């Protein structure tokens, strides 16, 4: 390369306790070059960039800018050397305009003149092909506009080395393309760009060279034109992996969960979910696509009974036809209620009414004995209304609804508790004793650790000490162990390495094969298209389309994600019949 080296790291090492986040990393980026930093989650990409941007300080090693060793103790130092980082989470003041945010904290000794700033911002924007109005307030902006402001903020301060941390994570495919155009223009202008990502097709599309990190080590830097996704994957993972998801055709499909007209507003009165209608079917994986924060989380939480709904119905069809009723989760009162509705019969076909042939009421003891003996059967599938039921009531109704929430350690699990105690979350209430039984959860913990190959010192290790993939295996393992009939999973592979991700995909497919209705909220459209049977697209809390995953394209989904409903409205109605 004839271009001069802009930034170089030499032997940079950073440890967090016993974890080596970066070990002896040497890499460099030239002027006028886009370098992709590729690696699985937890391989140390972000840590390395944070050291360059002055957020962390390296334990050892040095950083060189334009061939001279520099010391970067804070983001301010980084800016002084022309380094600017665009983080995944935006740091903007909602009530300020774009230009006000951009100029915030800039101390150039000049008098503050917003008109001048507006003009300068507009000039930079024009130069690189951004579409942004400097006078627009942040709260009126879409996610991609906010990202633009973040990039402008860095450029305004004169940065010529830009670091972007997973910039496409919050964008639709179309927005990503636009961003890439801008990045290419910056490259032509002589800027150096480091882009962190774990999406291979983006690496291939945008970068000049790729630096691959694995477990904190720099494996190699290769020229993009001379490599292939397969080779890069092998470098990332350290071994060959087959990157396809097995998708058997669904069989015995029938309605399991019917959602109609679901609407929800949050505490401030903002409508989060608006008239959502769809059906989750047994034996099928229903994918939910949408830009992050379009209501996916609230939708699943509403079904799980965690929110108060304004409107709509959630109907659950319990596949109990000709199966015996049990006390597994149901109370005696529930049995009598079902008898009153004429839902139950004896094995020999007589109706169970809670009375004997002479019309005298059977004693509680007799009925309990009959239930235990398994001679009372359901006549038909049970139909249960889940709206306005608490999670506990849902379980007491015998609805085996499993839910893998987005926030694993803040909702699905308790970080400070060990694996055994986390297993108990679902089952600790069982039995009349005032004491908890840790034996069965202990056995379950061992089974899950063994079957899902969870890497942990023991089942008594607090789950927060486990890596992201292992935490997720524990959570998914527990939810599947409850033998669900509906399994909802929100971003179950976020932050997971490739192998763990495929383990999770396989587990979901396995559940689908067992006749479970699987609902999968995902962010990677490629995965959604490969894994799911149908894809529901939502935008700003509204359903914009339901697509057959075997025929849909990424572009179609991308359009629906941004709310282009023109072509989709009719389709939605048709498919939801």
């Amino acid at each position, binding site marked *: 390369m004839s271009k001069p080296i802009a930034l170089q790291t030499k032997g940079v090492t950073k440890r967090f*306790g016993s974890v080596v986040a970066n070990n002896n990393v040497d890499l460099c980026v030239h002027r006028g070059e886009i370098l992709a930093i590729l690696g699985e989650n937890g391989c140390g990409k972000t840590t390395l960039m944070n050291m360059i941007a002055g957020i962390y300080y390296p334990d050892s090693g040095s950083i060189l800018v334009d061939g001279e060793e*520099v*010391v970067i103790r804070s983001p301010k130092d980084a800016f002084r*050397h022309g380094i600017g980082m665009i983080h995944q989470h935006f740091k903007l003041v909602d009530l300020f305009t774009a230009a006000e945010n951009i100029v915030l904290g800039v101390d150039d000794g000049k008098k503050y003149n917003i008109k001048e700033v507006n003009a300068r911002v507009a000039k930079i924007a024009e130069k690189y092909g951004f579409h942004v109005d400097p006078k627009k307030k942040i709260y009126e902006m879409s996610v991609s506009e906010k990202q633009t402001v973040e990039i402008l903020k860095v450029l305004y301060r004169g940065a010529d080395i830009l670091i972007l941390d997973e910039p496409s994570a919050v964008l639709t495919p179309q927005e990503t393309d636009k961003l890439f155009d801008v990045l290419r223009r910056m490259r032509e202008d002589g800027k150096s760009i480091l882009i962190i990502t774990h999406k291979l097709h983006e690496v291939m599309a945008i970068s000049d060279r790729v630096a691959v990190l694995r477990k904190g080590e720099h494996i190699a830097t290769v020229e993009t034109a001379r490599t292939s996704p397969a080779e890069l994957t092998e470098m990332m993972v350290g071994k060959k992996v087959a990157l396809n998801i097995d998708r058997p055709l669904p069989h015995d499909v029938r309605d399991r969960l019917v959602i109609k007209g679901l609407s929800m507003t949050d505490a401030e009165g903002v409508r989060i979910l608006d008239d959502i209608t769809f059906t989750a079917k047994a034996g099928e994986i229903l994918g939910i696509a949408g830009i992050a924060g379009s209501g996916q989380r609230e939708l699943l939480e509403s079904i799980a009974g965690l929110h108060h709904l304004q409107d709509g119905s959630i109907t659950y069809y319990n596949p109990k036809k000709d199966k015996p009723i049990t006390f597994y989760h149901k109370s005696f009162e529930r049995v009598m209620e079902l008898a009153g509705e004429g839902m139950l019969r004896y094995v020999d076909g007589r109706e169970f009414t809670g009375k004997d042939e002479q019309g005298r009421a059977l004693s509680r003891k007799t009925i309990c004995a009959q239930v235990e003996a398994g001679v009372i059967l359901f006549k038909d599938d049970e139909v249960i209304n889940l709206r306005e039921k608490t999670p*506990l009531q849902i379980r007491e109704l015998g609805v085996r609804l499993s839910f893998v929430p987005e926030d694993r350690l803040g*909702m*699905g699990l308790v970080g400070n508790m060990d694996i055994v105690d986390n297993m108990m*979350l679902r089952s*600790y209430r069982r039995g009349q004793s005032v004491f908890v039984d840790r034996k069965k959860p202990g056995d379950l913990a061992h089974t899950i650790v063994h079957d899902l190959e969870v890497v942990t010192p023991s089942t008594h290790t607090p789950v927060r000490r486990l890596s992201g993939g292992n935490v997720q295996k524990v959570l998914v393992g527990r939810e599947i162990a409850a033998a669900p009939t509906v399994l909802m999973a929100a971003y179950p592979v976020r932050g997971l390495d490739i192998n763990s991700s495929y383990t999770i995909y396989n587990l979901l497919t396995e559940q689908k094969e067992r006749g479970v209705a699987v609902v999968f909220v995902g962010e990677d459209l490629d995965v959604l298209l490969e894994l799911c049977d149908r894809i529901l697209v939502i935008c700003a809390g509204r359903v914009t389309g339901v697509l057959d995953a075997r025929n849909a394209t990424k572009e179609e989904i991308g359009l629906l994600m941004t709310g282009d409903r023109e072509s989709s409205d009719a389709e939605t109605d048709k498919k939801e019949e």
Partner: protein
Amino acid sequence: MKTIEKRTREPLFHVVKRDSLPVWKGMLIRVIAVVAAILLCALLSVIMLENVDPIKFVTTLFDGAIGSQRRLWKLAKDTAVLLCISLAVTPAFRMKFWNIGAEGQTLVGALASVAVAYYLGGKMPEPLLLVLMLVASVAAGAVWGGLPALCKAKWNTNETLFTLMMNYVATGLVAYFLALWCPSNGSVLGRLDFGHLPVVLHEYFLLIVVTLVLTAIVYVYLHYTKHGYEISVVGESENTARYIGINVGKVIVRTMIVSGAICGLAGFLIVGALDHSITTTSVGGLGFTAIMVSWLAKFNPLIMVGTSLFITFLQQGCAEIGSAVDPSFPNIIVGIVLFFIIGCEFFIGYKLQFRKFPKKGGRAS
């Protein structure tokens, strides 16, 4: 192409997170902290007090705490009362419900006992009177603890402020009843003749046994029962609790009732076994010291036996050293020691990595 205006130097040191330390090393750091604190205190006492040298400081400290049989019993008694109140605040703290109202909850417990003994003493057999006192104390404590919890559960009020305010109300109530009962005597209630707990072996023996049994009960309650498990889940993450269908409000109220009830029990013990009377300062700040005891023990009732003993030991020992000169001296010492103990936790979790000298490579001028 770009000039860099100012060179920055590598920082003198930066903080690095440690691996999990072996238990003995952690203990060693804590012991060093305590020793260092005591040395500093000794030095301070030499400066501040006359006729004290560091050796004398340490010997007086031990002499004051355990120098005679009477002092040993006093140490055990004070430890027991402190431990009892510490046990009371622990369930709430494990739930991250910051109950700083143990003082008031204990005081109303004591007041309830005194009221029962004052009005009903002599009118019924002693055992029955004692049972009534116990029930009244526990109930009063439970109400005092339950009320802030109920408001928290219903309207999400701030429990710290609420429980703190309840302390003042409790003090006011005691002052009111004292004025009501003994208007002629300057509102000082004399020693009650009824409602004394029986003396077994020693006047403090029963108190100590009750507290130790209570320690075991609270430990089992927190670690092995469904209630205890729910408390931990609510404390760690309310979202998780809601997700698995725990009624968070119910757990908060129930746990604070338990917490308050144990405070009430402590109040009963103070009246029935020790004071046989009440003043507005009967609890004497133990409700606040208890917070420290519980926290130092990381909310583990078994370790709290040690931490309550340690704090009582310090207070009693220091009282011997400095009380003649300056009544606040013991507090200064306890403060210094606690500062060192809490501060050393930082060094257990992190270490400092200093800049390496000399640095290779030209960094001249």
